[in-house]
């Protein structure tokens, strides 16, 4: 395998892993707060659409990325509001939000841009690395990747080391105990949803940057894969990042095989199933390993 092919594969894997990792790290906040958000999928889609819309209207990459984060947070706020104020079930509200995202994005696209199809944005394209363009490039990624990486690092550090992270985890461990310690769990859950929505929205904006456009249905299950990554990574930022690198590699491998000629290229569409199948398999095997380890621990505890 040539060095350029390896570099191309690594860049592709990193580019695919980054949005999943950011969305998963945001989702970790809701998991820690005891109110896991499944609306991440919808927030990615809304974020991508908001970024492309604002990016193309303003001509600014920065505003596009900001708009993506805000769009994702807005959708998450509906779920958090329904859960906190109306005591709606957060899971069902999340499913409703995902459904809302698909319909609303399509309707808005038709209303404002006269199309339900691809929405190009040259401004967002400036955030992606293009070979030969002479623009910014780092590990094969564009400038938007740096924003994504910085956001992911901030989320991971805040979760692991800040007082906010500690209080968030406390609010997820038990409402009564948290209240006794002066923590208002509902408030922390609300903030956790906003953080998760903004992170997923930014992840969607990054995905739009990589293709310089919003493409209908472009989230394509990545929000759910991010949820799997949270548990595959043992609910720890480092583990989640590693899990996402695995998932990113699977997407990159799928893309690489689709680029080959002959029989493989003819059946390229089928290869798109591989990341989902492999994610499911990895998740099942990891859980099996965890169960075995727990049993061993239990047996050792009994014998001692």
């Amino acid at each position, binding site marked *: 395998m040539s060095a350029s092919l390896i570099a191309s594969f690594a860049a592709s894997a990193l580019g695919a892993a980054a949005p999943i990792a950011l969305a998963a790290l945001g989702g970790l906040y809701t*998991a*820690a707060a*005891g*109110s*896991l958000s*499944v609306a991440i999928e919808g927030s990615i889609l809304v974020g991508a659409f908001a970024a492309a819309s604002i990016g193309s209207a303003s001509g600014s990459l920065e505003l596009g990325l900001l708009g993506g984060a805000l769009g994702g947070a807005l959708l998450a706020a*509906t779920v958090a509001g*329904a859960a906190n104020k*109306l*005591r*709606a*079930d*957060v*899971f*069902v*509200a999340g*499913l*409703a*939000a995902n*459904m*809302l995202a*698909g*319909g*609303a994005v*399509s*309707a808005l696209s*038709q*209303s404002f841009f006269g199309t*339900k199809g691809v929405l190009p944005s040259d401004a967002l394209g400036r955030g992606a690395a293009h070979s030969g363009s002479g623009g910014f490039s780092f590990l094969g990624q564009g400038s938007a990747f740096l924003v994504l990486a910085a956001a992911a690092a901030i989320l991971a550090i805040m979760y692991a080391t800040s007082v906010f992270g500690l209080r968030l985890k406390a609010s*997820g*461990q*038990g*409402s009564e105990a948290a209240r006794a310690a002066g923590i208002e769990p509902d408030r922390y859950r609300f903030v956790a949803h906003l953080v998760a929505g903004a992170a997923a929205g930014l992840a969607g904006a990054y995905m739009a940057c990589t293709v310089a456009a919003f493409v209908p249905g472009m989230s*394509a*299950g990545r929000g*759910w*894969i991010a*949820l*799997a990554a949270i*548990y595959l990574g043992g*609910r720890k930022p480092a583990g989640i990042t590693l899990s996402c690198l695995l998932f990113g590699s699977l997407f990159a491998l799928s893309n690489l095989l689709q680029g080959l000629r002959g029989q493989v290229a*003819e*059946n390229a*569409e*089928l290869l*798109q*199933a*591989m990341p*989902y*199948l492999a*994610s*499911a398999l990895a*998740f*099942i*095997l990891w*859980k*099996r390993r*965890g*169960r075995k380890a727990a049993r061993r621990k239990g047996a050792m505890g009994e014998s001692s």
Partner: protein
Amino acid sequence: MKVSRAIFAPGPAARRAMALLAALALAGLYALAAGGFRSSALYAFFVSPFASPYAFFSLLERAAPMLVCAAGASIALRSGAMNLGGEGQVAFGALASALAIEFLSGLGTSPLLAQILAFIAAMAAGAFLAWISAAAEKWSGADIMLTSFLLSQAAVIAVDWAVGTALREEGSNLLAMAPVPAAYRMLRLAPPSPLSAAAPIALFIAIASYLFLSRTEKGLEIELYGRNSRFARAIGIGSGIRKLAMAASGALGGFAGAFLVLGPAGRAMKGMTGGLGWDGLSAALVAGSDPLIAAPAALFFSWLDAGARQGSLLADLSPDAGAIMKSAALFLVTAAAIGGGSRRGAARGAAREAARGEVREAESGARAAAPRREEGTL
């Protein structure tokens, strides 16, 4: 004069109905605002789906597979599992039925027998896909919610590839398999409308699912396991019952897929599921995982879809309004179902469980959002 407080504290079913009415009111406001405050927009959205036999029968035909999916989703929900793989199970069922009917019609099998075998093949395919998630849960503890979704995504892609590439009809412009011979399609009840035998069959399946869950021993076991798996295991109900429930759920998803192939469309096409699995799950959640109540819920969702479609043709409304209104209904119903009165305790319980942060607890939270009946009536 003293007025009973009960008037102001309607039960869960009434609250669900009120939530759906609120969703309809929202749809009306949307139709008015988007249609330039013209009565024609309201007419297009609300009345035109019922304005002619053709339109109404189309609505019924669309509701039929949704109802079967909803019945399947209800069985999984009752067992405490959130089956998010409906789309894949529908797609698998559709492909299996298309292959079966192609093979059997080639052999010259009688149409009725071929149809029965095609439905069985569809159910087996859907059941197999759903069963994998339940078996994986037993083997490793992997959450059904995530594995069913991931496997479904893969299944939909694989079926789309098969239908649009490997098994595609030669020389056709469509990304589809060869059409099912006319004699092997389901009976059309009111031609030229698309209404087929799917509608009465779907109603029969909903009733049968309801009776299975409420009147049989296995149904009770599913219910008990869903309510409290630890208690269920203590009285000898093993996790096999979850596998049975998931397999039944997937089988009904596959059955709905066969409707798509053997119905008016008459062939397996790329992208044919069109969100049917999600709509079925949503209808089941709105109906509180009661297969009988799922019938009006599926009709309601089908009405919203048809209204949005008619509105886009007659009053320049967005055809996506249906999806938006369905999500509004789901939001309102989940809030109404556990937001007040007697359900507050259930919500708190679900929140406590979810606080442990496991996906499994989120599933149980979803179950709390879809109460079937008052606690203690088992």
